[in-house]
């Protein structure tokens, strides 16, 4: 009886620390809503050359645990302006890809030839449409899917001035064969 009582009291006291401690440790598992898409202007349309991909950073406020950074690069995108009536901005078309590789999340770069995207980590290659390409030796690409395209549209300053490329930037789960937004 006394032995049982000692054990019970000991367990109760331990629970006062262990249970809240477990909750505290698990706090990082709680969703903090860092995902979700943001719509940002990333580049002036006139700065893009037809057929030549260019990369731009995306700036937004970012919360890192307790610190709120008001304006930080949260990622990078590749923009590719496609054929359209030259000088006619409204007829232009721009495609946007996130620079995050769908394999393991490295930053995708442009091949020296400028006509192919390459991920420096595992040599995954993509054509300018973002489709996976076999590597130099003809082996299948490491990328499980093509580069993730981002929604993108052209907007104009309210004073009828510059045309801008506005990108809906978001992050996707890596390693999957389909494109699943991170939440």
């Amino acid at each position, binding site marked *: 009886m006394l032995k049982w009582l000692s054990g019970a009291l000991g367990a*109760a*006291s331990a629970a006062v620390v262990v249970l809240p401690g477990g909750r505290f440790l*698990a706090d990082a598992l709680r969703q903090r809503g860092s995902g979700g898409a943001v719509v940002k202007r990333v580049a002036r349309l006139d700065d893009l050359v037809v057929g030549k991909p260019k990369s731009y950073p995306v700036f937004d406020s970012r919360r890192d645990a307790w610190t709120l950074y008001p304006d930080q690069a949260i990622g990078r995108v590749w923009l590719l302006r496609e054929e359209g009536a030259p000088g006619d901005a409204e007829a232009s078309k721009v495609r946007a890809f996130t620079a995050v590789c769908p394999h393991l999340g490295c930053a995708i770069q442009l091949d020296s030839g400028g006509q192919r995207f390459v991920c420096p980590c595992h040599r995954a290659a993509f054509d300018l449409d973002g489709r996976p390409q076999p590597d130099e030796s003809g082996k299948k690409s490491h990328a499980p899917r093509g580069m993730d395209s981002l929604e993108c549209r052209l907007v104009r300053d309210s004073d009828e001035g510059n045309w801008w490329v506005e990108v809906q930037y978001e992050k996707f789960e890596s390693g999957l064969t389909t494109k699943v937004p991170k939440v």
Partner: protein
Amino acid sequence: MRVLLDWLDARTGYRSFLAPFRERILPEGPSWWLTSASCLAWVFAIELVTGLLLMTTYSPSTTSAWASVHYIEQSSAGRFVRGVHYFASHALIVLLAVHVLRVLVYRAFRAPRELIWISGLLLMPLVIAWAVTGNPLSASQKAVTQIEVEANIIGSTPLVGPAVQRLLLGGDEVGHLTFTHLYFLHVGLLPLAGLALLAVHLSQVYRHAVVREQLVASGEALPYWPYQSVRNATVATAVTALIGWLAWRRGAPLDAPADADLAILPRPEWYFRCLFELRRYFTGDWEFIATLVVPLATLLFFLAIPFFDRYLPRRLAPALRWSIVILAIGAWDWLTWTSLARDASDEEYQTARVRAAELSERARQLADARGIPPEGASTLLRDDAQTQGPLLFQRHCASCHSCSDSGGAGIVAATPSAPNLYGFGSTSWIAGLLDAEAVGGPHYLGHTKFAEGDMVTAIQELHADASDDLTAQLRAVAHALAAEAAPGQDSPQDEGLVSQGRGLISGQLGCTNCHKFRDQGELGSAPDLTGYGSRQWLEEFVRNPRDERFYGDRNDRMPAFAARSLPSDHHLLTDRELRLLIDWLLH
């Protein structure tokens, strides 16, 4: 299970290792007094576990310490875990004192147990150092002041003081390195030293414990397990429950982030109150007696007890032991009580406490609402108009202006000699300016050189040949001018009033005979009413009231605080201060 334990025992021999615990005998039977040791060990364990938990999130640096502690407070169960860590440290100090006195009364320090006594006593300064290095980690204003004072106490120690002080702070003053140093001591060096002392302490206890084979038959003797254990567990549970209750209800304090501009009246934690009080009796060069000699002498005296106790006459020894206990408790209580009582009746201190609580509350609010900027938590209050506005007003404006409501609450000028700015630009403030009595009264122009000027005369004349609808007209004017201060905030029913008032200003009431209002009237004889009381208007006015747009050469005594014509190092208010002051005035 049994098989598994047998297998383990065959390889480790853990049963024979545990035997002294299982077979330990209490020759005089179990006692509630004997629970202090295990309870102390239990609270140590709580500190260890909660400390490790806090380490997962705490970040020691001047920019991140307060922020990470605030983050812990916001995490699930974080406030409770931190509260337990905080109150368990208090429990540790109390229990250690109780344990020492209990051992003293029981004469448990006798040969061959001197080492138990010594290693246990040395835990006392260690635990104190643990608390001293732990409390400032939050980098609150109180925390930083505490460590500054403690470092100065260390610095005033003869010979080694200054060097140790620099080592502790990591430089001349509190900074990033202070927090990494304190953190290193708190979670690195002191735990190692504590474990070493505990190892000596417990191995000696273990070595000198009475076990079953040695027992001389005695009627009262009972095995430790479970007769003493159940008492230990009961007390440990009660202490844990108390700690948990305090952590749940009160939580650990977190004052506002450190900022030298926000003066507070710091006090040491309650367990240092006795030394704090003692210091009142040793001032100047003698201060080190209170901060160094008395604590050290007390410790040395206690350490020496086993070595002279045995030579004392049979009757004297117990009397001496009891008088030490009574004297220690008495002196501690008296000093602590005197210090607390003095503060309780000290109005200045009580006001400062209320103020500190307000600042803490405000800083937490801001951190939750805005997030903490990369420059660190100190900027929260430094860039907060609600906090800085009154301070700036006191410093720069309150020698002439009051800012107090009709009940007199707020900031009252030492000698009011300029308008009361409470609610400046609002409908009711302007209504007062348009009142025949008030305009020349103490809250408006009464104490200025315009007391009998054109404005006062004009208003009084308006009222003298009062038409029936003057009251309604002035109400419309008040609304129209208030709308200048806060455009676009009128309710639809006010809009008619506002446009009526605008018409009156430049028409029937003749304000634009002197004032400029929009495209009517001219500058040069009275302040511009366009945008009157708006942020932009007020900023330019405070920058330079002598500007043509305002009073020009007719300006009374108001200084130009930041005239644009002057280089910014000649300004009385920086742009930031100006922004905060105006934000606050117009809030």
